[in-house]
């Protein structure tokens, strides 16, 4: 596969390390009332779609960017690649 890195252009997927669903960005609040439940869902439950999937890839053999790649799990077509940091900020993560 080829991943079009937003900063570095097309790179072979072998340069990257895969983590999983980009929902892993949405780490729950540890002090929330339902923290145990929320962390269980965060840590263990997955949508696992057959189709479009937003997922985290790390450019380990490159610039060490974490990327959010939107990829179809049925045909492996990649429709979008973003810096995970941008996605995280857009989802309201900060400090």
């Amino acid at each position, binding site marked *: 596969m080829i991943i079009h890195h937003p900063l570095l252009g097309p790179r072979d997927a072998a340069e990257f390390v895969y983590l999983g669903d980009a929902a892993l960005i949405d780490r729950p609040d540890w002090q929330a009332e339902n923290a145990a439940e929320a962390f*269980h869902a965060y840590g263990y439950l997955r949508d696992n779609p057959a189709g479009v999937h937003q*997922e985290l890839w790390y450019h380990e053999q490159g610039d060490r960017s974490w990327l959010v790649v939107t990829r179809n*799990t*049925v045909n*492996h077509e990649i429709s979008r690649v973003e810096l995970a940091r941008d996605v995280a900020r857009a989802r309201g993560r900060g400090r």
Partner: protein
Amino acid sequence: MRYSAFKIFREGLTGNKGWTPAWRDPEPKPEYDIVIIGGGGHGLATAYYLAKEFGLRNVAVLEKGWIGSGNVGRNTTIIRSNYLLPGNEPFYEMSLKLWEGLEQDFNYNAMVSQRSILNLIHSDAQRDAFVRRANAMFLAGADAELADADQLRAELPFLDFDNARFPIKGGLFQRRGGTVRHDAVAWGYARGADARGVDIIQNCEVTGFDIENGKCRGVETTRGAIRARKVAVCVAGSSGRVMALAGMRLPIESHVLQAFVTEGLKPVLPGVITFGAGHFYVSQSDKGGLVFGGDIDGYNSYAQRGNLPVVEDVAEGGMAIMPMIGRARLLRNWGGIMDMSMDGSPFIDRTHIDGLYFNGGWCYGGFKATPASGMCYAHLLARDAPHPVATEMRLDRFARGHLIDEKGMGNQPNLH
């Protein structure tokens, strides 16, 4: 029809005209006691044991395509019970014992061949871990045998002992491990279940569940609605897709695992060999092909095919331990979709929906589990209580913190 050498002889003399279908091709009935979704190894084994061990025969197995088209037909055929943890080892040992009597039980030669499995050891720490595991196997009544490098050199002189990047320091044998003709397992169970009255319905895809007030009353299929007292999902590889129809999220990701076979060769490998410092395991089929595999590709996929980097990685592993295979040619390479669970271990459990049961999460180890999975799932469906060797394989274990993590890789499915 009972199969035997005599039957073959008689048929051979009369032009092989008397063979009858191995299983019927029935129309689905409107209602069953139990509907099993998924005509793979586990689903068919479940139906077989429901009928045979629990006397439940008003059972249907619904298969989207042709039976055995999932992972039972696309694996590397290895059986073994060399597990470590109490949540796993007794289950897999029961499975191995069932394999040992399977063919006589269902009157089908699945070529269960206890050729042995060997895990190579390349470091002291690895030896410590294997000793712990070997002893756990003994504690569960299984067999295990440690070998040192000299013993291996005598037994398997073609391994690379002298020029290896990661020297072979020994190995852990399970002599009762081995291989099975994978397709025949599906066919044998199907035939056995069919003969006991189970309806095996191919080309019947489940498109939805009939769930009312938290109770599952049946399924919608491409061949109409079918009602059932109990619905048993058994579709590893597609678990995410199917359970989504019931609105459930699972502790599972779908990943692709590639497998490989070479052109046929005269016998070179006595048993199954597993590289301990890379991703490679191999055996030789009765037809002579080297059947081998390695790591999963590592990204979520439902595509039943993989990519080149893993192909190369696996071949490198092979050449690293047995450089004699360089001139053997890779003939065919395929991919299967694995239910990769969050701790690398499976589930055989009820769901929070009354009447809906789930079996899945087998990672890339489901084949060897087929008999025990069928037996334990049948037990659960018949008795509504887990089988004694499958008490830990629960969906709520992560919430409780009861992990069955053989490799210690944590909640990242592609590392198991």
